[in-house]
């Protein structure tokens, strides 16, 4: 491609500016601010359009803003160029956004508008590289513009693609992109989960659900088992319950039967008791009768005055006194008699005055004394004294007769005193006699022998009522007892008459009702538990019969997902394998072209540095290592000038491989700025020699305008 002419209608500082190029070397000289960069940017914009403005860009970065016409309006211009023997006119108008861009391409000969891909992507079509490639190859800026491996590394791709029999459409990067995207779509998409991951997640979810479902189904199954079991159990229990109830009825009946037997015995006892009672009643009746007759007997006492006993006792007492008095009277009478006798006696005694006895005794004593005094001892003559005395005394008159006369006198007095008392006593005695008669009358009336008897009878009469009432009570009690016994007996007889017993009673095992009851309660409790369990099981069944997915369904889903996952996994593996194989193939290609590039760069380096650097190695990311005097150095450590030279060689090498003879044109934007004159000269010469197309060299140094000589060089002053 050869640039012929640019017409800037409006772009940055330029307005209606025209620039013509020669097909060979064009040197554009302009001081700073003359607009070299603007022309470069214009070319870039014409072929590649401008990127959209972005907030984050500074004005310098934001080309769309930066090159907006100073006078306002849209950016616009025209480029005339020829390509493969055909001439074209490219017009472009650019507004504030890429959308406002209008491009037209004309066949310069026919003025026919071209509307195919040439118009859509003129840069890529005519220059053979994209914008990135353009900047890395065709456009060599003063500031080194180091080639870096970028995401859309066109160059290396282009290099490799060009190796494929010229089939530029087969793009390694594109292929890798497609495969990577396919891979990612399976594993992950933009941070989100890819198909396989999603399926796996889904599967995990399903597995959890399956676990749940299996648990629920287990519960369901267990509930069914339980229900069946409990139903069976309940049936059995009901049977046992029925048996027990029957048993209990039997036991009850037997108990009644037993009671009846007891009743019969009781009846007998009652009869016996009744007989006894009747006997007692008889006795009681007799006793009552006796008491009654006794009471009748004593009825005469009712006529006896209540004071009778007292009267009687008083009479008695008086009688005792009377008797004493009577006794006293008799004693007095005796006394009176004695006194009269004594008076008579005393009257006799008054005449007998010698005491013969004494005289006799005294004679006796005198005789004893005369005898004893002559016979025995003279001492006995002393007895003559008492005897003589006694004889004297025996003839003295007695005192006794005087006393008798005195006593007669007192006795006669006494007698006179007693006589009226005796008369009183006789009156009392008479009264006594009357009293005695009266008492005897009372006793006679009371059929009593004595007062004691009367008292006894009276007391008998007093107790007979009590006795009678007790007898009546006793009698009534016995009768009542008999009545009660008869009542009970009647009742028992009635019950006995009514009672009928089944033969089953014979089968009664003898088990106690309490025992049966206990068992019954037990069974009932068990039935309750059974029913509770049944309800529980049924509740479980009902609660589970809802519409969750069954394990079978979930298993199906999991199986399907597994299958799908497998398929996707296979697809993934295959894609991965394809990718690996593509990459490997690319490596093969690259390893094939890398030495070629190295060779080209090496030649360029040797030439440009006058053999100072003997070898250059290029790594994947375009960093360079150079060998000088056997030492290998990273190009980054070299001086700016040397670095530029090296990169120029790399550029040239790449250009050589990339475009071969088809390099559209080359723009050098003060590329030799850092080089010393000599090196600049060498570089210029080298480029001139190697280059077979158009060269546009921008410089702001007048001394560099003649780097390429003057011959066939179009020098343009801006």
């Amino acid at each position, binding site marked *: 491609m050869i640039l012929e002419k640019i017409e800037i209608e409006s772009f940055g500082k330029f307005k209606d500016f025209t620039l013509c190029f020669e097909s060979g070397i064009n040197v554009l000289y302009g001081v700073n601010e003359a607009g070299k960069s603007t022309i470069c940017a214009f070319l870039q914009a014409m072929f590649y359009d401008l990127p959209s403005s972005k907030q984050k860009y500074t004005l310098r970065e934001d080309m769309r803003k930066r090159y907006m016409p100073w006078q306002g309006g849209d950016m616009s211009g025209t480029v005339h160029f020829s390509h493969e023997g055909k001439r074209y006119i490219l017009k472009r108008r650019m507004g504030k956004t890429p959308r406002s861009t209008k491009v037209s391409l004309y066949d310069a000969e026919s003025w026919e508008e071209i509307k195919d891909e040439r118009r859509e992507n003129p840069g890529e079509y005519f220059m053979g590289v994209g914008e990135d490639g353009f900047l890395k190859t065709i456009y060599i800026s003063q500031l080194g513009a180091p080639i870096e491996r970028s995401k859309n590394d066109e160059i290396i791709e282009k290099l*490799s*693609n060009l*190796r*494929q*029999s010229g*089939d530029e*459409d*087969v793009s*390694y990067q*594109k*292929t890798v992109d*497609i*495969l990577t995207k*396919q891979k990612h779509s399976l594993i992950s998409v933009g941070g989100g989960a890819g198909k396989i991951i999603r399926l796996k997640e889904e599967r995990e979810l399903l597995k959890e659900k399956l676990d749940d479902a*299996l648990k629920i*189904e287990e519960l*369901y*199954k267990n509930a*069914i*088992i339980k229900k*069946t079991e409990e139903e069976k159990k309940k049936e059995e229990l009901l049977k046992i319950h029925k048996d027990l109830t029957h048993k209990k009825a039997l036991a009850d009946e037997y108990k009644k039967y037993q009671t009846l037997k007891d009743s019969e015995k009781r009846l007998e006892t009652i009869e016996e008791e009744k007989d006894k009672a009747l006997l007692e009643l008889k006795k009681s009746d007799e006793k009552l009768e006796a008491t009654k007759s006794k009471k009748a007997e004593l009825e005469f006492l009712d006529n006896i005055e209540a004071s009778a006993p007292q009267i009687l006792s008083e009479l008695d007492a008086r009688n005792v006194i009377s008797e004493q008095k009577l006794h006293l009277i008799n004693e007095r009478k005796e006394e009176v008699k004695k006194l009269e006798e004594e008076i008579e006696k005393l009257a006799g005694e008054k005449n007998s005055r010698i005491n013969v006895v004494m005289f006799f005794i005294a004679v006796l004593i005198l005789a004893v004394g005369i005898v004893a005094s002559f016979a025995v001892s003279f001492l006995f003559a002393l007895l003559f004294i008492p005897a003589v005395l006694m004889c004297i005394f025996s003839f003295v008159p007695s005192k006794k007769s005087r006393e008798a006369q005195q006593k007669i006198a007192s006795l006669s007095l006494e007698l006179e005193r007693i006589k009226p008392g005796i008369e009183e006593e006789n009156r009392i005695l008479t009264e006594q006699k009357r009293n005695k008669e009266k008492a005897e009358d009372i006793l006679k009336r009371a059929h009593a022998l004595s007062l004691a008897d009367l008292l006894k009878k009276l007391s008998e009469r007093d107790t007979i009522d009590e006795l009678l009432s007790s007898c009546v009570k006793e009698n009534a009690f016995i009768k009542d007892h008999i009545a009660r016994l008869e009542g009970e007996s009647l009742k028992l007889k009635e019950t006995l008459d009514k009672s009928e017993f089944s033969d089953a009673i014979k089968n009664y095992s003898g088990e106690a009702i309490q025992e049966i009851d206990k068992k019954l309660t037990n069974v009932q409790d068990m039935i309750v538990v059974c029913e509770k369990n049944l309800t529980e099981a049924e509740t479980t069944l009902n609660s*589970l*019969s809802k*519409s969750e*997915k*069954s*394990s*079978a*369904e979930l*298993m*199906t*889903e999991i*199986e*399907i997902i*597994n*299958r799908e996952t497998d398929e996707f996994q*296979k*697809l993934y*593996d*295959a*894609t991965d*394998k*394809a*990718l690996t*194989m*593509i990459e*490997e*193939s*690319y490596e*093969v*290609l690259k390893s*094939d072209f890398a030495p070629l590039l190295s060779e080209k760069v090496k030649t360029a380096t040797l030439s440009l540095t006058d053999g100072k650097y003997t070898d250059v190695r290029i790594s994947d990311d375009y960093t360079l290592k150079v060998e000088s005097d056997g030492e290998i150095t990273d190009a980054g450590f070299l001086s700016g000038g040397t670095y530029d030279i090296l990169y120029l060689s790399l550029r040239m090498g790449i250009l050589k491989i990339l475009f071969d003879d088809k390099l559209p044109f080359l723009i050098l934007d003060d590329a030799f700025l850092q080089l010393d004159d000599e090196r600049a000269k060498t570089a210029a010469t080298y480029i001139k020699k190697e280059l077979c197309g158009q060269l546009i060299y921008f410089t702001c140094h007048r001394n560099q305008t003649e780097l390429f000589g003057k011959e066939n060089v179009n020098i343009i002053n801006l």
Partner: protein
Amino acid sequence: MPLKVVHCADIHLDTVFSFLSQEAAQIRREDLRGTFGRITELVREKNADMLIISGDLFDSGDVSRYTLNYVLKKLSDISNTDVYICCGNHDPKLCDSYLNIMDFGENVHVFSDTIEWIEKEEYDIYGVSFGDSIVRDSFLTGFKVKNPDKINIMVMHGDFTSSDYNLITKTQMAESGIDYLALGHIHKHEIIKSEGCTAVYPGCPEGRGFDETGEKGAVYAELTKGKTEAHFIPLSKRKLHEIEIDVTGLYDYDEISSKLSEYIAEKNDLYKIILCGEAEFDIDKDVLKDGMDVFFVKLYDKTSPKIDWEKESEEFTLKGLFIKKALAEIEKDEDDEISKMALKIGMNAIGGR
């Protein structure tokens, strides 16, 4: 009056149709239930004396409650008909299997894992269930009916070839005195006779995989002593088909589709389509499938592409190198599906797809 028997087996309710899509699997499971329902309808229609289910009523021990309730309902619909069920290897009568623990109704008898004998006025029926998923003992060994003069029926799951599933021999049949041997396990309908004994496999009533293609259903039999007439009654909701299509000379989807339509007669059926021959173009299965309006299609592409790999692989280009590598991988292992796919995927990617 002959004894009227409806005999089915291998319904495999709640089958995991993992080869289908979720939706299709769901529908197929419902199809299974519906077909079981139609079997009970057949019982009513024929006014049958009994329904025999010779095992594998359920696909596994895990039965959905929905299905259980459906079965209960359908069996209660024919509560006047005796139903005899034996368990097969898929639903063996284990202590916790539904066939063991559920009460399916007064009319339903599930045989135990030893031969049971039920005497009826018109016939004697024997039956035995699988107690486990494998039964190595032959149930019929030494078996003889008790009343040889009556119609004797035996219900069981069994196999004439595999000793893992109650091996049955024709000799056993001949000596047993059984008139009608109601079998299950083999999913293809088959009638085997040995002396007076007629063994019948009704087959599964619905195909469950592409190895079970064609007409499926149950058996209706009329039995009189000494005469057994068994008729196959198609009942399946959908049939499965396997079709092989040679795509050689078919240059676009249209041409393939129109050729396919010659084979696809029933839209509600399931089809396994194998594309073979030489593909004139890169056939995308999804595109082809999209153009087919049938219940379910499984496409297998066994075509060989019409590309001269060898020639292309000789070029020293990305494409050439890639093909060479892929072919080398495939050569290592003929069955390396991944490498084959990788070649296809890689070529598509290189082509910008």
